[in-house]
């Protein structure tokens, strides 16, 4: 046997890749996990928080052993205007462990160590230039140095997936199928952070920022709390950035001037600025997931549920299902597209594709109404609270009547009707 021949090669050591690698290694298959960064996590960016249950499915010991920052016990939804904010908060029990913040440079590295302990080979600093094909079957990878051969290659090379592109397994990505996200991480000493965000020692909160300065675009902001740092970022549809000729860093700078945000990051020392694309095409733009000798998982397969801010969990699950499919194929010595189509079935039977299907129309529905949902309504809600909380010398009834009337007179009535229609359509779309 060729010295460079192995059962499976997994390209990309993000959550999809590592999940695939560890699942294969646990089944005693020979697996090589390649990563272009100098360590796992070096090129990876997310908000972010990972979800406990889906992560535990792959790493049962992670709560006790992995480098975790804080467990999310509070979700704050802040509707922003330039100078005001209306925040709704959901605080759960302190003992809740549903999601937790992690830093990818630490967490992804830990995950890969687990895969290595299970028997996977890990090759960092390895850039895959292209896939090697033989008679229509993927048989290996060509890196900048060497060629490696395998019965199956699992592509988990992220949102830009140059390998899926090489195989024409997916169409050219259009700006409307991705969001661009930038993030800044600020160092804050632990005590200041906990006082400022009203947190206990291990608890954390997530802010979802809606409205200003992304009041005409399909975009949202976020804040995550780590042990002694916070991550502030925004994600905006690339199509909207293009259409409005916006640089996302300028938008982030505007957000940082908003009073609520500036008070939360005050005196923080900037540690890092990063950017990443988020696949937002959803169900309709999932590429072909398998072919002869090849499977695609994670962001490379566009598996992101943008409404719920889910991505790493879908990556972990799809990586596992890809590996299970590969294991069966190896046992049967059948690496054909027909044999690997099991992966598609497994994904369709799991929450991954079921959820993406549920939300398949959401982005298309909301996109034309972005200025209304992210601009007009946050403004109207702020106006209501301004009236409700301000005590002056005018009779209240007059103020309220004026306010209610404004909902019908600010804009053409058609706008309001269009929004109601979209909300009903979206709710029906999700529940049917």
């Amino acid at each position, binding site marked *: 046997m060729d010295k460079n021949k192995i059962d499976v090669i997994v390209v990309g050591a993000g959550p999809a890749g590592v999940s695939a690698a560890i699942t294969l290694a646990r089944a005693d298959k020979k697996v090589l996990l390649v990563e272009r960064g100098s360590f796992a996590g070096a090129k990876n960016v997310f908000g972010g928080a990972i979800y406990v249950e889906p992560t535990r499915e792959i790493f049962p010991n992670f709560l006790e052993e992995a480098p975790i920052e804080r467990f999310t016990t509070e979700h704050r939804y802040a509707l922003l205007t330039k100078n005001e904010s209306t925040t709704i908060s959901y605080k759960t029990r302190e003992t809740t462990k549903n999601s937790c913040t992690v830093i990818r440079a630490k967490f992804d590295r830990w995950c890969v160590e687990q895969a290595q302990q299970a028997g996977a080979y890990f090759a960092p600093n390895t850039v895959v230039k292209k896939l090697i094909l033989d008679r229509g079957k993927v048989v290996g990878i060509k890196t*900048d140095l060497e060629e490696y051969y395998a019965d199956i290659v699992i592509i988990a090379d992220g949102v830009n997936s140059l390998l899926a592109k090489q195989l024409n397994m997916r169409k050219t990505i259009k*700006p409307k199928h991705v969001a661009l996200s*930038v993030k800044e991480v600020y160092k804050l000493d632990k005590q200041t952070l906990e006082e400022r965000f009203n947190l206990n020692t291990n608890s954390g909160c997530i802010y979802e920022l809606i409205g200003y300065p992304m009041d005409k675009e399909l975009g949202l902001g976020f804040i995550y709390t780590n042990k002694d*740092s916070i991550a502030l970022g925004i994600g905006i549809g690339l199509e909207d950035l293009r259409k409005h000729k916006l640089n996302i*860093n300028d938008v982030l700078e505007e957000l940082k001037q908003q009073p609520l945000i500036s008070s939360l990051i005050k005196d923080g020392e900037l540690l*890092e600025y990063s950017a990443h694309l988020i696949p937002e095409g959803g169900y309709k733009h999932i590429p072909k997931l398998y072919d002869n000798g090849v499977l695609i998982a994670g962001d490379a397969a566009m598996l992101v549920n943008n409404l719920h801010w889910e991505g790493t969990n879908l990556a972990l699950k799809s990586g596992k299902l890809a590996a299970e499919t590969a294991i069966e194929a190896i046992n049967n010595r059948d690496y054909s597209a027909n044999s690997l189509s099991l992966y598609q079935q497994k994904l369709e039977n799991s929450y991954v594709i079921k959820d993406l299907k549920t939300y398949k129309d959401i982005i298309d529905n909301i996109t034309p109404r972005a200025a209304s949902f992210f601009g007009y309504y946050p403004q109207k809600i702020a106006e209501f609270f301004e009236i409700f909380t301000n005590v002056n010398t005018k009779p209240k009834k007059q103020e309220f009547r004026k306010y209610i009337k404004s909902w019908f007179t600010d804009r053409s009535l058609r706008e309001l009707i269009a929004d109601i229609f979209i909300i009903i359509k979206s709710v029906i779309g999700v529940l049917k």
Partner: protein
Amino acid sequence: MNINDKLNKLKYNCDTVSHLIPYAADCIECKSKICCTICPAEVYEWDEANRKLIVNYENCLECGACRIVCEKKCINWEYPAKGKGVTFKNG
């Protein structure tokens, strides 16, 4: 905060050759020069005098937005060579 101050915080290992290669003839024809607007690291600048795109590839955050947004689809976008490019410590 100036973009350069932000990029200065990052760990880069710069290559001597660019991993981002726009097709010059297409860039001259391109009306929007949208890469110059969109890039979160301001990698691209249009040099009107020489009618060519300046690519400060050393600052690239490797997000891929330019490749997708380019109206001519003319950027040959590769990952930096092994060990090169940006390393995120807080991703």
